[in-house]
């Protein structure tokens, strides 16, 4: 398997196409309606953050699997990469309500709750890579 799709994000259109690609892949992998909505919403948050704070970047979507005692586990991985200003304090941006743009500040903590795995790798001045995974139940 491992169909991978990359979507460039440098306008609001990019956000929409990343979402669309995510919804299609989620459907293909067999996610139900609620999880499809969660995945699409998470992509929307990550892509919009790229557009707002880094101007441009990309969303990489991939079907993944891991072997476990119970058998093979399948999931969908979203990687949001940009070469923007980076995030100074990861702890701070993960607080509900923390925003530098007058938003709700619910995006990143929300994505963490929407997905099963969540990881931020960011270097100030160099960029940000956020990797999240949703596993099929």
């Amino acid at each position, binding site marked *: 398997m491992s169909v991978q799709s990359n979507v460039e994000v440098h306008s609001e259109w990019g956000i929409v196409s990343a979402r669309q690609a995510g919804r299609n892949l989620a459907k293909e992998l067999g996610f139900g309606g609620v999880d499809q*909505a*969660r995945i699409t919403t998470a992509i929307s948050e990550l892509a*919009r953050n790229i557009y707002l704070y880094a101007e441009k970047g990309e969303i990489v979507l991939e079907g993944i699997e891991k072997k476990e005692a119970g058998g093979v586990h399948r999931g969908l991985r979203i990687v949001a990469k940009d070469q923007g200003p980076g995030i100074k304090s990861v702890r701070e941006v993960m607080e509900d309500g923390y925003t530098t743009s007058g938003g709700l500040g619910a995006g990143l903590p929300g994505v963490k*709750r929407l997905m099963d795995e969540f990881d931020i790798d960011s270097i100030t001045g160099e960029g940000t890579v956020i990797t999240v995974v949703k596993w099929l139940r």
Partner: protein
Amino acid sequence: MQPSVIEMINSYRDEVIAQWKKEITQVQEGEFNHTVPEAVFNETNKEFVELILHTLELKQNEAKEHLRSFTERLIHTGWPLSYFTKGLQVFRRVLLELMTSNDALPSKKVYETFSEVESWIDGIINQLVDEYSGSWENTLHLQKLALKELSAPLIPVFEKISVMPLVGTIDTERAKLIMESLLEGIIEHRSQVVLIDITGVPVVDTMVAHHIIQAAEAVRLVGAKCILVGIRPEIAQTIVNLGIDLGKFSTKSSLRKGIESGLELTHRKIVSV
């Protein structure tokens, strides 16, 4: 253009026209004459080639004017831009071939003629492309306007009650329109209750939620009440996961329930008779 060159072009006039018509018909056979009757085609070709030659005798702005009215008419009836550009390219080739086949012409004269013809035809091509893109921009502008009107309509369904059905993706541009249209519409229709129906919104992320919250707040400030309807179950879940508090909000599961509660708020109800 030098009078001697014009004179020379004119001396080839009939040959150029005949040759051009022959070649352009070949090009057209493969391309764009499927929908246009032959008679119309021949007529247009004749008019086009004569117009090209006619521009030689006109002053520059007169020539422009003539070209403009001709292209405007054809753009209107849907002729492709490639008809003009191909037509002009073929014209240039035919003319230059005829002129250079004249051995009596000194090579310096050949060069001069060449560049004169090039810049003459280039000028016409540029103008046509400009006219075309201008008309495209115009169309695009009109379509944007139409979309704008469609993107956030406020519909007065009962006295004092209006509905805004939102269908499709909400971007920042549209979020602005929603706010404007809501506030203007409330004043215009004297609405006391507005129902925002998000059944057709595919994704409600923090930005969309934020805009809806702000819109509801603004509605409250102008003295009306906002009820959010059409929250699909999966959307309700993601809103909760995002940690967005819609507690301050009136929400109803369906438009019908929303209307019932709107009627109640304005001290009315629907009865069967």
